[in-house]
């Protein structure tokens, strides 16, 4: 039983996401340009450090985006562009970025997973 319990706690063999670092770097530029940090604390973005929305530190570890939809790259890209469509009633409004920009921003958010 004890063995089983500890085996269950073992860290996964590989990170949940493979991050394209070049895309992630583009994503950071998108995030800075779009002003995401006005509401969210985002590691790697020095200013601003928004407090109004949730902090995005360790975002890669989160299971559900906004507590509602599975945290996959596809869902996240869609959520970044039009959150209310993905999660009805979301406080986060649609953000004026292109699908490519959203994918890049998503790559950046997965890249800041702090325990990989």
């Amino acid at each position: 039983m004890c063995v089983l319990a500890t085996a269950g706690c073992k860290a996964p063999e590989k990170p949940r996401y493979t991050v394209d670092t070049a895309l992630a770097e583009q994503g950071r530029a998108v995030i800075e340009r779009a002003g995401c940090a006005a509401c969210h604390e985002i590691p790697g973005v020095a200013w601003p450090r928004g407090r109004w929305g949730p902090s995005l530190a360790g975002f890669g570890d989160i299971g559900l985006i906004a507590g509602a939809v599975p945290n996959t790259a596809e869902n996240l890209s869609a959520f970044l562009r039009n959150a209310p469509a993905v999660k009805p009633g979301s406080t986060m409004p649609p953000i004026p970025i292109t699908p490519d920009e959203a994918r890049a921003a998503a790559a950046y958010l997965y890249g800041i997973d702090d325990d990989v």
Partner: protein
Amino acid sequence: MFDALWGWPPPVLDPAGPYADKVTVLAWVLLALGVIVTAIVCAALWVAIKGPARWKQRLGGESAVWIGGIAFPGVVLTALLFWGLTLTADLTDDITGTEPRIRVTGEMWWFRVQYLDPAGRVVMEDANEIHLPVGQPVVLELRSADVIHNFWVPHLSGKKDMLPGRTNLLRIQADKAGQFGGVCAEYCGGPHALMGFVAIAHQPADYARWQQGRMGRLAQVNATGGPGRQLFMESGCGACHRVAGTEANGLAGPDLTHVGTRATLGAGILPNHRGTLIGWIGDSQGIKPGNRMPSYDTLSAAELTAIAGWLEQQQ
């Protein structure tokens, strides 16, 4: 505003109009002369330390002092003075009075922008954004409402102080359409580093259309409504902010009549869309600590969204 300071080529060396162009030419010439003089001094130093005896002797003579110490700087500096004054003479040309005139007032920590008619009356008010036509000089009346600020759009002109109790005139001109970042270039307290604006240059036809559109909207009744408008009024936003055609007529903060069209928020520091509007109203102190707008953290997410939605309609 950050594109006023960063980027490649550096904005100070990337003029987009005749007035900035002259300042840039002057800067390059001064830099080149500085390099030449430094090279000459280094060469002379080398001769003095390691050069052949005959050269050392020549360099140590009295004529070297007369030539290198008096004649050379005298001639170069005099020529430079005359050339520099000639080059920049038209920066202070008389103002004809036919130029579009905009009054820009530095406030802690944003820019009040008032478009004037030929008689000097305010016809339209805005904030942190200056629209101008391409290829035409625009005269700015620079003032301050509190402390000393400084108006600077590196792509378009040199810096000019904004002083309390005084009006300084500055001419700017853009020779290409585009958006140019500007900043306050004089430390003015707390969030000074977050006090910026943008200058937007339009082709003359676009400028005329922009102007007509604005004046047309001012002439209409402000019919935008809904819960956002009600919340805006009930929360007391109108005590500091004016929205033409509504009961909001505060003068302390930026005029929000056209806030939905602005490129930036928070005095040139954030892009302007619903997300940043919500973040700014909900927690402006977290974004720009010390600015004079309190964080409206008592408003719920839905209320902020409604207010932001209404502000977006203020075109």
